[in-house]
């Protein structure tokens, strides 16, 4: 099986999720990665969706954060105020798993507008749960496609600020912050060059002294991911 760049990104993101953690999951790429992790190396992680489903175990990827299967398979169902106050704000969440439209060199995220807020070029959906997930989860995994529209020198709008440890997985490689908090390219995926990653970044991307190459997805990771998508 030959993996697509999106599949390599999703698999790399899934591998970041340690077994046994409590993970607050955003929809889309984060949900695919978190469920892949749960179906492979992290069977004991607990997935929370902001709809109030704790311990959801979907067999197919949900389209929304509130699909019926999330409720059917959850250990507990709680209200939206409860999920944000008692679970997220109280500090119970180990890992926040987020996507975004734009990211800056420190891993701050924009999901609100492109252009001026009062007269936007593109109106994006907005904050949703992200600002509080970014600030309250003990660590944050971010996953988004790597290009100069997404990786920008200056965000049009700061929607979410990550406070703790963070890692960014893209379709080109892996970025982790240095001691100043600035993201550094630490790995590239198979057949991707450092130059490609730099060219896809809207600022002068810093590169680690030794850049690793991501292990390609295993047959098992790929087949499980495809089954989740196909179901």
């Amino acid at each position, binding site marked *: 099986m030959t993996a697509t760049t999106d599949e390599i990104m999703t698999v790399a993101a899934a591998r970041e999720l340690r077994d046994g953690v409590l993970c607050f999951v955003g929809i889309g790429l984060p949900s695919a990665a978190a469920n892949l992790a749960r179906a492979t190396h992290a069977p004991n992680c607990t997935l929370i969706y902001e709809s109030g489903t704790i311990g959801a175990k979907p067999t197919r990827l949900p389209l929304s954060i*509130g699909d019926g299967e999330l409720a059917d398979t959850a250990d507990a*169902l709680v209200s939206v*105020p409860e999920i944000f106050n008692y679970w997220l*704000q109280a500090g119970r969440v180990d890992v926040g798993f987020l996507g975004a439209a734009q990211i800056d060199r420190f891993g701050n995220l924009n999901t*609100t507008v492109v252009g001026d807020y009062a007269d936007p*070029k593109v109106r994006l959906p907005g*904050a949703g*749960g992200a*600002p509080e997930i970014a600030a309250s989860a003990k660590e944050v995994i971010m996953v988004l496609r790597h290009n100069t529209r997404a990786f920008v020198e200056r965000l049009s709008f700061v929607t979410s600020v990550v406070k703790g440890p963070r890692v960014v997985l893209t379709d080109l490689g892996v970025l982790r912050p240095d001691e100043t908090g600035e993201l550094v390219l630490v790995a590239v995926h198979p057949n991707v060059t450092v130059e490609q990653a730099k060219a896809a970044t809207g600022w002068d991307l810093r590169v680690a002294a030794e850049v690793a190459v991501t292990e390609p997805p295993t047959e098992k990771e790929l087949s499980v991911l495809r089954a989740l998508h196909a179901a």
Partner: protein
Amino acid sequence: MREISLAEAVAELVRDGDSVALEGFTHLIPVAAAHEIIRQRRRDLTLIRMTPDLIYDQLIGMGCARKLVFSWGGNPGVGSLHRFRDAIEHGYPHPLEIEEHSHAGMANRYVAGASGLPFAVLRGYLGTDLAKVTPTIRTVTCPFTGEELAAVPALNPDVAIVHAQQADRRGNVAFWGITGVQKEVVLAAKRALVTVEEIVDEIEPHHGQVVLPSIAVDAVVKAERGAYPSYAHGYYDRDNAFYREWDAISRDRDTFATWMREHVG
């Protein structure tokens, strides 16, 4: 319980210029009631809802809204809400004032509203630009620890509308599955309308069930499949295919107008 139709209930409870919150977090979205508001040509509404979803895309596109109070305005898992975007980006069909929060902020605003408090406190919006563009995000200092926290005012809509699975003949309402902020919005609002899948002699017990006593609501109306293309747990599934189709229907102004005329009236 009074026998009343959805048309009568909307005519009685929803007035031009009202602030109206139709809630239901992905699940149990009160679509039938939203369509009735559109058919009755309500205008200048302040629409309040955490996730505007297809129903507010439709209300905005049909010119019912003056202002939107929200926290996430997308088509979940699909992309944009095109009528919402057209209103904000191009002022079509007319300009839309927005007041935008995070989910945690909106949820706590409803809790404060239901609790009869003037505002809610949360550890939120830290470092974000949201407070710069939304005047209803302020800070407050904890008198006990000195911690600076976000403060957001209570939401007390003129009208709350929610959809539930069952009501009994006395007007007690039960919903289960993902229950969102429905209890909070009903208790925060001045008037409350509930549509239900089914009216039963005895409400069935279910895991995670929320019951609203009849005294908390002003009208209960049967609206079978009243949440479609959202879903009612135990009755019908979310029509994810339709959520995908909505992208093309809503993208073009004329296609949208034709679809609304044919399917809503």
